[in-house]
């Protein structure tokens, strides 16, 4: 098991290197350091000297990939690529273009992101599984048919409409929760109720339908028929056998997402003014602050790989037959 984890971790290294090359390539093809400087230095009275100074201070005056002026190891280390990309591997994110420490920022913004994403995730799974179990239970009846139609209809609505509509009705017309904002501690509840609700409702369509197919597939199997033939109550069949055996496919879809919850949700956070990592990323994209985008891409990739690893490990917990070696 431990050997497996170590192997997987080693396997992650070339992937992360690849990611680094891709993001580095993309961002430096997009924006030259000159562009970044001008973006940050504002609108009025920007001189070429100021731009040179800005670049020098942030190390953008170095060559991109190799430094012909240096010798030995510094041939590679005194470059933008080394400074900006390789340092990510030791989680040294450096500073955003507005000179704030990125690591510090990520630490403080993680809380709000999780406060939104975790409830959406947990409540969402609970609601979806409940709905799906209901539909599977009433399979091939009108309840099931209408349930599926409702699901398809709900997943045909763009998430933007859920947010716009929810905010308009609940906050503006009914005065039930603040329109936007965030607070620490228990005060956060009133800010989070609506985004969580919208997140859950918006996910019901696709989620329930997905779980329903999983359950139906499981219910077609022989052991379920045997259990039923033994005279077990339908609910007992559903909960004891079907749900448990459907756990493996559910886990594949679910566990991989868990680490990514840290990344926050891009659109919801911006709409509701929640100072999490999602809105941080959107801000950075819009301000073309590539130091931040690069850091977020890197973290996202690490978390994804972590998710894959967790998925594999969770199999062994749910299904003792699966062994990793």
């Amino acid at each position, binding site marked *: 098991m431990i050997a497996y984890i170590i192997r997987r971790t080693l396997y992650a290294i*070339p*992937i992360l290197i*690849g*990611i680094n090359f*891709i*993001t580095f390539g*993309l*961002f430096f*093809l*997009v*924006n030259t350091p000159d562009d970044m400087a001008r973006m940050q230095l504002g609108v009025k009275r920007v001189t070429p000297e100021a731009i040179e100074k800005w670049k020098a201070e942030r190390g953008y005056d170095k060559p991109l990939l190799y430094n012909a002026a240096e010798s030995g190891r510094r041939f590679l280390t005194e470059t933008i690529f080394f400074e900006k990309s390789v340092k990510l591997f030791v989680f040294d994110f450096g500073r955003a273009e507005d000179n704030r420490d990125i690591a510090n920022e990520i630490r403080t913004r993680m809380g709000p992101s999780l406060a939104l994403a975790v409830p959406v995730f947990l409540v969402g799974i609970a609601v979806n599984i409940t709905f799906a179990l209901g539909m599977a239970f009433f399979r091939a009846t009108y309840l099931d048919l209408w349930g599926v139609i409702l699901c*398809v*209809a709900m*997943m*045909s*609505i*763009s*998430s*933007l*409409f859920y947010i*716009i509509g929810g905010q*308009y009705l609940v906050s503006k017309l009914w005065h039930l929760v603040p329109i936007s904002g965030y607070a620490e501690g228990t005060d956060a509840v009133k800010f989070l109720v609506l985004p969580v609700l919208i997140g859950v409702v918006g996910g019901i369509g696709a989620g329930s339908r997905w779980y329903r*197919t*999983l359950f139906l*597939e499981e219910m077609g199997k022989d052991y379920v028929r045997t259990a039923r033939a033994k005279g077990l109550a339908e609910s007992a069949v559903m909960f004891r056998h079907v749900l448990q055996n459907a756990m493996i*496919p559910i886990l594949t879809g679910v566990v991989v997402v868990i680490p*990514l919850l840290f*990344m926050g949700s*891009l*659109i919801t956070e911006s709409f509701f003014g929640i100072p999490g990592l999602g809105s941080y*990323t*959107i801000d950075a*994209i*819009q301000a*073309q602050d590539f130091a931040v*985008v690069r850091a*977020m*891409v890197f973290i*996202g*990739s690490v978390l*994804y*790989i972590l998710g*894959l690893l967790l998925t594999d490990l969770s199999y062994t917990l749910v299904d003792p037959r699966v062994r990793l070696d």
Partner: protein
Amino acid sequence: MPVLLPTDALVWLLVAAVAAFAWYSSRRPHLAAPWARVLRSRAAVASAVVLGCFMLVGLLDSLHYRPALPAKDPGAPVAYSVEVRSALDALLTPLRTKLEKTYSAPLATRLYQKETVERPDGSTAREFPRLAHGGAHLKDEARWGRDVALRILAGLAGAVALWSLAVLAGRRTLARRWPRVPWSAAAAALGGLLALAGPAAMLAGGYHVLGTSQVGSDVLYQALKSIRTSLVIGTLTTLVLLPLGIVAGIAAGYFKGWVDDVIQYLYTTLNSIPGVLLIAASVLMVQVYVDTHPELFPTSAQRADFRLLALCAILGAVSWTGLARLLRGETLKLAELEYIQAAHAFGVSHSRVLGRHILPNVAHIVIISLVLDFSGLVLAEAVLSYVGVGVDPSTTSFGTMINAARLEMAREPMVWWSLAAAFFFMFALVLAANLFADAVRDGFDPRVRV
């Protein structure tokens, strides 16, 4: 002067390819059978009719030309306008050219905003001015209700007439040829569409059916123009996605070894990068490319078109990994089967095994995932455009419509019609696509989970 934008060319290429594929499969029972199963579902037939109408609008909007300017003197060579129009634009000329000053509600006769107007006696007053086109034919605004009702009735009558004709013609031809298809569902869907389109067409002659936007252009026209953007995104993306996904997936599953390692490495790496960020970065890069090479894109239509195409390419390049993974798994399974092992033993070449045995046996997965991807891509376009990394701002799309409409929601009284129009058109398109996709999945292989 006809203009062939790159997306037009690809759209028509795709149409040709689909037609060829349909002709090819109709000759081969094992390929035709699943489609026959699909077309036995009432939902599939009805949604196919709806999708067909959307396609028709989209295809009409993909025939572009530059209108000739009126000749100055007889001998002079014809000069063309730089503006690029489509067949749909020509068809909808009244909608396109009847512009108001700013917002007006659906079917309104007056502007939505008060203005200082000069009275005939020279004094000025602040009131809602009459629209330049909407309801301008009414001498007396009190007759508005009667006029609207009459137009709706006339539209319905026309719709019924058209519908009866279509049903009669269909019964003679289609229903005889393919008796097992539930044509009543198709007739119902067509009836519903005509019942909406007939009155809308009649009303559009004198009013703005879905109101006007901030700069006074017709919202119905915008919504119809958005359809092409959605369809292009939903279909052209597959042109990029397909070859990448199929080649990578099958190669990894068939050849195994280092090929498998390399391909797995590639798609794990791509998958690890958060999708939105990768798309955002790529779109920004394309934007920079366009901005730094203005000579390649002399008109804004070309620029917008290139960005649309680039967006498709980017979406395709980001999303081929899912298909590749599915195909790899399926190919791994197939490669272990006895008859393929036997083929190897007989020394059949790889290309022959792949072409004869593997590819046809994974085709259903390809078709299912394509159909399922469509609605996801249409929804993704809206979100991406909303964030600002989608289509060019000058392209009409549902995303740009929603973005503009969001600010209008804060007005009081609220400007709801742009948002409502975007909502209903998008909902109809995506719902039809989803229902059709479900039927396709059930028809081809109910067990495949995509």
